[in-house]
């Protein structure tokens, strides 16, 4: 076994272990902040797996989008919402957990089935394009995958406009269900002019 192959095997086993343990930690840990940081670790390890597959552009995009944007925003949101609130206990939690576990296991078995029934590997040996992949991805995005690409951008635009409407308090000032005006107080203390004396 050559040194390069050994290194690859070691990297692959470490990365997959981190992905599996990290993902379990994300759903099983009680502290939501730990879950959020572990999610970042999982994203990083997935990027490492892409690197092992010679897809360096996809790996860098994974780090930029998932770690640098999605995960940072998740952590940001968790830290901004520091309301201490006791959550109501959910009724028949046990049966819910059993149902969700069985759904997840079904999905997992489906994935394993796909993995076993598919023939992996390239059609011809040495057909991997390596560094050229950046150019190929660009070509595909602007030719045969143009429509999905544009649909995705329209979806993102819709999400952004929705977020702006939700955040603008002068637009959404009535509760949709009851029609009563919504409490629009900011979480932080309202500004008080310090230098003006109040009588």
């Amino acid at each position, binding site marked *: 076994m050559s040194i390069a192959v050994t290194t690859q095997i070691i990297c692959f086993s470490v990365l997959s272990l981190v992905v599996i343990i990290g993902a379990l930690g994300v759903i099983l840990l009680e502290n939501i902040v730990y879950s959020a940081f572990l999610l970042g670790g999982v994203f990083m390890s997935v990027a490492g797996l892409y690197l092992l597959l010679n897809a360096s552009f996809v790996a860098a995009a994974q780090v930029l989008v998932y770690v*640098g944007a999605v995960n940072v925003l998740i952590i*940001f949101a968790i830290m901004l919402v520091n309301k201490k609130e006791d959550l109501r206990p959910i009724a028949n939690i046990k049966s819910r957990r059993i149902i969700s576990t069985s759904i997840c296991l079904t999905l997992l078995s489906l994935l394993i089935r796909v993995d076993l029934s598919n023939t992996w590997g390239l059609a011809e040996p040495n057909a991997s394009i390596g560094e050229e992949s950046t150019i190929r991805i660009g070509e595909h995005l602007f030719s045969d995958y143009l429509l999905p690409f544009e649909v995705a951008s329209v979806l993102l635009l819709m999400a952004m406009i929705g977020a702006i409407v939700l955040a603008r308090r002068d637009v959404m000032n009535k509760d949709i269900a009851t029609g009563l005006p919504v409490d629009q107080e900011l979480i932080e203390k309202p500004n008080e002019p310090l230098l003006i004396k109040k009588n």
Partner: protein
Amino acid sequence: MNSGLDLENSLNEFLKGFGLSSELAHIIWLPLPMLLVLVSAVVGVLVTVWLERKISAAAQQRIGPEYAGALGVLQPIADGLKLLVKEDIIPAKADSILFTAGPILVLVPVILSWLIVPFGQNLLISNVGIGIFLWIALSSIQPIGLLMSGYASNNKYSLLGGLRAAAQSISYEIPLALSVLAIVLMTNSLSTVDIVNQQSGAGILSWNIWRQPVGFIIFWICALAECERLPFDLPEAEEELVAGYQTEYAGMKFALFYLGSYINLILSALLVSILYLGGWGFPIPVEIIAKVLNLPIDAPVIQVFTASIGIIMTVLKAYLLVFVAILLRWTTPRVRIDQLLDLGWKFLLPISLANLLVTAGLKLALPQFFGG
């Protein structure tokens, strides 16, 4: 394009002379450039700290460090030693795991980014195809480390500092990436070596700063904001936040933050010089010098000359920019957080988008000047 000096091949041949296999020779070679770059980064930090102290002293009409070595050049080493032997304190109610992991997460991506900094045609650790994109991706990890240390310190100033750092970093990453994209559009490649080679045609006249003046200014402002240098050092604004996310840190963990911020500053200066100021290129092309001296371009003398000129030019350009950054730090006031976000989202982002569009249009209209 000439291949220049190839140290890797010569060392491999030299080691094979002792009867080692080529794989073993490769393994012996691998850590050498990494170690060299790490050492040069740390030495660069020491130099920058000294410059910062001396220039700030000059700006405030003081003398600055004077007794440690000639003109106080050993002062940064004394500072480093002091931090090394100081007690490492973890506050009682802090989250000790996240508290320790935070500074590491801040420092490691910065050091990894040195992978793509070229000092010459072959003088870089790895000419990866995604080059400059790797740096943009890696620099987006840093805010996680800052948020982590801000949260783990269990201190409201730290948390605010971490949140500010993340907000600032997210806002300024977008114009930064867009101005890099304009350069990539002109080069047709993400690799830093290709970016420099594309600027090496006519010496100083072919540098990207003449073709991308707006991009240069946007990139410089965003790089300063990403490094959290004044006028953008809001995450650690002393008057409001004590020291931001580093308030609770002491000893070596604080030193990691300190080291990270200075390595990041030098890295940004190096990248500005690579993207806009011709990288390792001499203002007069080496080909012309070789012609005047009547030597072939691949003569050993010219090869050594090119390599040393390359390193000197890269470092010189980077330190000129570091000098400008230090001058800016000690002469400008800090912006407010709303001004900072306004500048990022309402000014730099539209301008960098327009710059990208104009570059694309010029590339179609004048392909001989803007890379066809």
